[in-house]
């Protein structure tokens, strides 16, 4: 309901929208269309009065004899038969259209939108009062966009591929556009970059899992093929790299216009970084790879917690984004203590400009954060960041051991487990380990 109503009431919101929405209404994801409202009312009589009092000089350009038009009836909460639609269209005979009707390719489209007040609500909240709107279409969103990109028809998918609609929203938040360079440090199957590429951006991605980015599921089922499938330009760079130890050359900065990603937070997929677990805990001396085994060696990885991951992400973004560039990413929240306001990661170089919650379950949401780089990454900030990073790493081991784990929070919250249950569980399954246990 909200989506349709947004477009119906859009005239009130126009000032707040992305300024280029009028030039490019097809980029709208949640906006169905933009209309010039000629009148509204609770009944067709009221609507007639409203349309008649709408200034003639605004109406005249669309009613001249050399342009064609059609009227489309749209109803919410009710479906109308063709005779019912025709009956409604004929009611508008009082508007002095001089042009001809053209149903297939009219110059101007007029929409009649009515909400319904009949008894059955289809499980939705009842509509307070019947409203009828009449307006001229300025532009509509590309309705083929989401069916074209929906995940079920995509060739190469991973367990955490970003839903197409969400990916487009993220790309819009990041202001992806032609000539912009967009980077995803957790590229996976490329589902977010596909949306950015659709808006014309040049894309780059990295991932620590070589199987995902390089191999895919065969010669024509990999990250590259996901772009080929839609006729989009391929990413100009894909690499296997560790977000924790990025391989950028010293002095490299302000390369990207936007960084968009869905960091691994360990609910569906756990994060990994370089370094084996033993290495991480410092119990065993670092493993040295023998020379004859160096070719084709697969380095072991250690768990990479969300906190450390986001920390690295913010620092990467501070360094690599242009001024005014945007960082758009998902951040998970547990809603165990609903009273306390969730606090989001902060960085001296960034201002948080949008917080959009997607409720995933009763106790778990993810929040799309949009941050703008407003301060440059100076030497002081870099030093501060390095210091914080070291402190962070030190405390991090403790944090890991304390076990404030998102995965457990989502799948086995403490409040549902009595001590007895916990004990019996740990007895029956002493080595309960799953990938990404440490988020």
């Amino acid at each position, binding site marked *: 309901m909200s989506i349709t109503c947004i477009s119906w009431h859009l005239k009130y919101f126009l000032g707040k929208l992305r300024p280029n929405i009028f030039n490019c209404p097809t980029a709208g994801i949640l906006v169905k269309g933009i209309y010039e409202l000629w009148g509204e009312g609770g009944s067709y009589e009221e609507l007639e009065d409203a349309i008649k009092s709408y200034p003639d000089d605004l109406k005249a350009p669309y009613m001249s004899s050399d342009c064609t038009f059609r009227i489309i009836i749209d109803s919410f909460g009710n479906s109308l038969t063709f005779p019912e639609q025709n009956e409604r269209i004929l009611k508008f005979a009082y508007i002095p259209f001089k042009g001809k009707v053209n149903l297939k390719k009219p110059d101007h489209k007029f929409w009649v939108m009515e909400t319904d007040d009949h008894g059955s609500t289809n499980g939705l909240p009842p509509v307070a009062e019947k409203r009828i709107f009449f307006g001229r279409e300025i532009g509509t969103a590309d309705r083929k966009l989401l069916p074209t990109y929906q995940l079920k028809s995509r060739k190469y998918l991973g367990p955490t591929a970003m839903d197409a609609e969400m990916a487009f929203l993220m790309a819009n938040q990041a202001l992806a556009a*032609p*000539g*912009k*360079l967009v980077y995803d440090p957790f590229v996976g199957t490329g589902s977010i970059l596909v949306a950015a590429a659709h808006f014309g951006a*040049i894309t*780059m991605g990295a991932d*620590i899992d*070589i199987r995902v*980015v*390089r191999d895919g599921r065969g010669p024509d089922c990999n990250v*590259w093929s996901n772009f080929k499938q839609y006729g989009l*330009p*391929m990413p*100009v*760079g*894909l*690499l*296997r*790299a*560790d977000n924790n*130890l*990025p*391989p*950028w*050359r*010293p002095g*490299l*900065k*302000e*390369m990207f216009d936007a960084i968009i990603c869905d960091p691994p937070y360990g609910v569906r997929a756990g994060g990994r970084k*370089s*370094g*084996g677990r033993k*290495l991480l805990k410092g119990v065993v001396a*670092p*493993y*040295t*790879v023998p020379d004859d085994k*160096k070719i084709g*060696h697969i*380095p*072991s990885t250690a768990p990479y917690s969300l906190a450390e991951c986001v920390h690295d992400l913010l620092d990467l973004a501070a360094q690599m984004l242009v001024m005014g560039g945007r960082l758009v990413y998902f951040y998970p929240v547990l809603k165990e203590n609903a009273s306390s306001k969730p606090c989001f990661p902060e960085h001296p170089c960034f201002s948080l400009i949008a917080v959009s919650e997607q409720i995933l379950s009763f106790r778990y949401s993810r929040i799309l954060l949009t941050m703008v780089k407003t301060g440059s990454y100076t030497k002081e900030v870099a030093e501060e960041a390095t210091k914080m990073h070291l402190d962070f790493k030190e405390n991090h081991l403790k944090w890991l051991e304390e076990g404030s784990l998102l995965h457990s929070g989502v799948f086995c919250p403490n409040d549902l487990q009595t001590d007895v249950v916990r004990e019996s569980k740990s007895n029956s399954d002493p080595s309960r380990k799953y990938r990404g246990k440490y988020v």
Partner: protein
Amino acid sequence: MRLLTHNMLSCNIKGVTNGFPLGLEITKREIKEVEFNSDFVRNMFAKIEWKALVNAAKSMGYEELPEEVDSSMLESDEFLKRFHHALLELHLEEGALVCPETGRQFPVVKGIPNMLLNEDEV
């Protein structure tokens, strides 16, 4: 791997101080067409290490880039087209990136460089 990526990467093995620019070992190279966007190329000009790009382009068999550049050259469409070609269209499909200090090879397979370090290099 395009030379834009090459220009951004260095060897980050612990203790290595001169990990840039990485050498190119070429087994298979390709030309991949990319739509020309003059604003993008102009933007990138200030961020690129020019000498590294010229040398990398040479090892990829493209010698049309001038050795010395200044920002006035951005007025020339001809120059922008060459820069665009070197930066975004020369593609290393199979080969390796070589650390100038240690000689460590980072393999490039199916166009994707593997920059992940081994346990003893972190």
